[in-house]
């Protein structure tokens, strides 16, 4: 019964993953048959300054968006954890942001961040605060994308709330006897309990931040101004489909895999370790 699943996994993920490694070593424009090129593709992309800019942008983006996202998820989980009247509405409001289609989400933010007419700048102006040009200014463009990505904390919030519930009451009982206040209870009991999940969430967000950046970049900035928001997935997309250099795009993909490989490995190792201890 798992046959379609396994077949699909092999055909759509495992085979393509191997194929992209193979593509990285050929010259391929999709019009004529591929020809062997060895490591020349890597040499070419490493010589290109724009590649390094994109790599730096990608790292900056992922390593600021993912921690912010995890932190945001934790804060909101803290706030919306207890079952109270209205809490479902609160959670739904936060969660719905995460289920909006990417295209719609990007376009909504394009409007929110509109430097002249967008509600955010109008609000800032009303409060007498400075109004940055957001996506239009090379200095704030990448930061704007980070904000847009970091605000989507719905899934993380649900995950942490659920993780919290799995905490046995016994550890809180002890704290109550001791007369600990809520802040200390959180700091010494809840946080350590949530730590493994928080770390997994962080790693997942890191991987997803890199991969899901293509849609917002295409719709919101087109990689600009200059190369301020050119991230690797977008550069790959441009290389492959605007300039017909699929081999070089695949080489970049290998670099991306090399980047996210260690976090994935770490996630796997940590999961195993933690739950083995847990069970022991």
């Amino acid at each position, binding site marked *: 019964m798992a046959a379609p699943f396994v077949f699909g996994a092999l055909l759509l993920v495992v085979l393509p993953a191997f194929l992209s490694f193979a593509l990285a070593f050929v010259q391929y424009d999709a019009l004529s048959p591929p020809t062997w090129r060895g490591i020349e593709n890597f040499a070419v992309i490493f010589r290109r300054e724009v590649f390094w800019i994109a790599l730096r942008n990608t790292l900056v983006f992922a390593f600021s968006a993912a921690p912010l996202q995890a932190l945001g998820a934790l804060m909101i989980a803290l706030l919306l954890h207890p079952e109270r009247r209205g809490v479902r509405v609160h959670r739904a409001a936060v969660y719905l942001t995460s289920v909006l289609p990417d295209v719609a989400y990007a376009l909504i933010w394009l409007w929110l961040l509109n430097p002249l007419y967008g509600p955010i700048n109008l609000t800032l102006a009303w409060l007498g605060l400075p109004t940055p*040009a957001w996506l239009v200014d*090379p200095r704030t463009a990448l930061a704007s994308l980070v904000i847009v990505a970091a605000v989507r904390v719905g899934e993380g919030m649900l995950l942490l709330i659920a993780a919290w519930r799995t905490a046995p009451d016994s550890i809180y009982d002890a704290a109550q006897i001791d007369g600990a206040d809520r802040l200390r209870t959180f700091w010494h009991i809840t946080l350590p309990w949530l730590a493994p999940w928080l770390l997994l969430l962080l790693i997942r967000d890191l991987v997803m931040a890199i991969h899901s950046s293509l849609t917002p970049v295409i719709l919101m900035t087109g990689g600009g101004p200059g190369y301020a928001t050119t991230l690797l997935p977008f550069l790959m997309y441009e290389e492959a489909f605007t300039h017909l250099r699929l081999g070089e795009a695949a080489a970049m993909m290998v670099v991306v895999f090399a980047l996210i490989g260690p976090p994935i490995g770490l996630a796997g190792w940590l999961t195993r370790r933690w739950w083995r201890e847990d069970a022991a």
Partner: protein
Amino acid sequence: MIRIVGVLGIALLLSAACVALEPSSARAPEQTSVTFLISGDPADEEAYRTLVEHFMAEVPEIRVELLNIPGQGDFRRRLTADFAAGTPPDIFLINYRRYGPFAARDAIAPIDAFLAQSDVLRREDFYPQALAAFTWRGELMCMPQNMSSPVIYYNKDLFDAAGLPYPTNDWRWDDFVNVAQMLTRDLNGDGEIDQYGFGVEAALVRAAPFIWMNGGEIVDDPAAPTALALAEPASREALAWFVSLQNAHRVVPDAVAEAAESSLSRFLNGRLAMLMESRRVVPEFRRIEAFDWDVAPLPQGKEQASILHSDAFCIAAASPYREAAWRFVEFANTRVGQTILARSGRTIPSRIDLAQDPAFLDAQARPHNSRIFLDAIPTLRAFPALATWADIEGAVDAELKQAFYGQIALDDAIAAATMRSAEFFSRQE
């Protein structure tokens, strides 16, 4: 309930498979169907649809399916993807700056042989500049459909309101800046500019005419380019003037204002006095009722120069229906075919005999000053034909945009563009 879901699922699986296997369109057995890909706004699409309908009425055995992908970038990626998939459109309309990658990879079927055998089309009927732009290593690759150059569209009502005379055909750079400054206004006194004098895309294709007018060059050797020549004094001076329109004179919307509302949209809504654009906006502009408008030539510099804009019909080498495709291309470029498109306002015919024709020089239809498009023809120059030209232009535009909006210094922009484009001059594709 579960059974229903299961059965429904399988049924849908099958129907999805059927949809996948079904050919793209059901056609009568004797009818050949060809696809024709363009990129334009709804007004463009309408013009080409009229052409297609005329053709199908004339030649009922060939069905032409018109596809439109708005947005030049998306259009090019779509075209590339189609070629890569082995299912290119039989015919596509493309700018001469963009066909290089396809020509270099033998993806386009040259039309020399078709043209030689044609009873209705002769090479001499067409402007040589347009033919030259689509000649790749001695072979004519595509059939030029139109030919134009950028001009200044201006809002007559705003000129009247400011008490300014309309631009003359021999105005110069300084006149232009003066006029633009007088038309840039804060109407309600809130400190924000409500009406801009000028709108232009910060791109090499817009700056190029001014570089040439100033005696500068874009590449070191137009016949066999090996590097950008934008740092040369004459080129740099022209670029400095171009970017000063925004970052010094402030007659062009700044980056923030442009992001909030595009110059094109401002012009359409009567809040921008002059706009530098090619001929392609005319069908849309003809729908403007709120104000009157016309065209003026680009302001002149030391020499007369402008840049060629030309799109051509290309036939995919991989198309199984090249003959049928040619019949459509042939029809589109006859007097009848080009007249249909000229009437829409979209194009200036590439046929010499039609340029003087009332279909194009229609006294009733705007722009009334259409003759300036013809006057510019002898001065037109083109970008070099390189397979990697799109890369080079992309590298320049990314920097030029930042210099234009005052985000980086012009000299840094030129240096960065020169360095980043270097690899694409030497690259063999």
